[in-house]
């Protein structure tokens, strides 16, 4: 398991979570390592446009495209990492990797609407069978922290939805590409199950 370090957020907790489920992981940062990886994790906390800019300037953008689209390397995007897989984000009005036919939008609520960011434990409604969501308790909760959300234009990639003022894609899958908006590494047992599902899929 290779966790991609592109300078957005602390990766140790993700690495530690994999360790907890018995999976060895490395933190990698070069395009070459991405190309030769057997399984990738794209984590991230921060600004969408800045993240894309960093991926491009470090040659990771092209390497990711090659690994994921051509070599079909399995990849799990977490939080911002999931959003980066979409075609476009309102956060900095930037184009993303575009692997998933979806847009990343900002939560916009009225004064009476819920607070932004969506921060805390929330459930997911599973819409479709996916290896990523195997063996979860029906009422499992996950930890979310985000102000932008993934709206899937292509409904069949959404594997779970969550409602917070509006309904959004809390997890998606398209072939070898997986994403979750919540933080599995901060979601105790339910989160570890997600990582296990990805690691042993």
């Amino acid at each position: 398991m290779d966790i991609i370090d592109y300078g957005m957020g602390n990766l140790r907790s993700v690495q530690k979570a994999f360790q907890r489920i018995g999976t060895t992981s490395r933190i990698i940062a070069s395009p070459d390592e991405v190309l030769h990886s057997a399984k990738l994790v794209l984590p991230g906390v921060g600004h969408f446009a800045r993240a894309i800019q960093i991926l491009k300037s470090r040659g990771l953008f092209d390497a990711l495209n090659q690994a994921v689209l051509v070599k079909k390397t399995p990849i799990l995007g977490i939080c911002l990492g999931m959003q980066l897989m979409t075609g476009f984000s309102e956060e900095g009005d930037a184009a993303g990797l575009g692997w998933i036919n979806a847009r990343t939008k900002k939560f916009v609520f009225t004064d009476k609407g819920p607070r932004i960011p969506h921060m805390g434990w929330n459930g997911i409604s599973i819409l479709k069978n996916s290896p990523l969501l195997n063996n979860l308790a029906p009422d499992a909760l996950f930890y979310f922290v985000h102000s932008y959300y993934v709206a899937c234009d292509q409904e069949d990639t959404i594997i779970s939805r969550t409602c917070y003022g509006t309904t959004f894609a809390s997890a998606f899958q398209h072939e070898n590409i997986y994403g979750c908006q919540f933080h599995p590494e901060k979601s105790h047992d339910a989160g570890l199950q997600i990582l296990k599902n990805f690691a042993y899929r």
Partner: protein
Amino acid sequence: MTVKIMPCLDMQNGRVVKGVQFVDIRDAGDPVECCRAYCNAGADELALLDITATVEGRATMLDVVKKVAEAATVPFTVGGGISDVKSAAAVLAAGADKISTSSAAFRKPDVIAEMVKEFGADRVTVAIDAAVNANLPSGYEVYIDGGRTATGADAVEWAKKVDGFGVPVILPTSKTTDGVKTGYDLPLIRKIKAAVSAEVVASGGAGTLEHFYDAAEAGATILLAASVFHFNIIAIPELKAYLKSRGVDVRE
């Protein structure tokens, strides 16, 4: 969204001052052991508070944050001695999910704006120590320096100002009720909740199961406590079952 239970580890020189006693752990003063025990007991978030926050203790604290980050399976907030973007950045780089600032923010509110800009609002909590003062409009006064210095400022007015920076979590601790286990300061929670859009943490005074329910009822969505968890007066699963039975949504 569920109401969150947040055990607080009071730290001094890298050790938990009040150890966890409710589970079979080897070293009740070891923050990593305590963190693990609370995560497994069902804590939704954790708080690590460096109660001395001396300059000499900073390196020790950062080392603790690193170790706790590796053991924590839920998000954790670190507070105590975080006075500027630089000290906050060090704590976040060590693996904390969020930082909490108090005195420094009050002295120089621009610090809040700087932290929000640098790290994103979701990583910033502002703590407000308050005590009853009938001469102020809200009846509560802001205290700083670990509760030692009265500022003359109205606590609810200050909370409104903090809220204006987009900080998503405000943590008022009542000096009037802290540590006495007679219940959270409900009027303080209600007044701040009514004045802000941020989440309000109930802190200071939890002694019984009912106290937690009362705080949730008053509008707090994060319920923080130290002693009742440390001294096994209340176990987290028991607390959650109780809250659920009274109609409060919790993660089980």
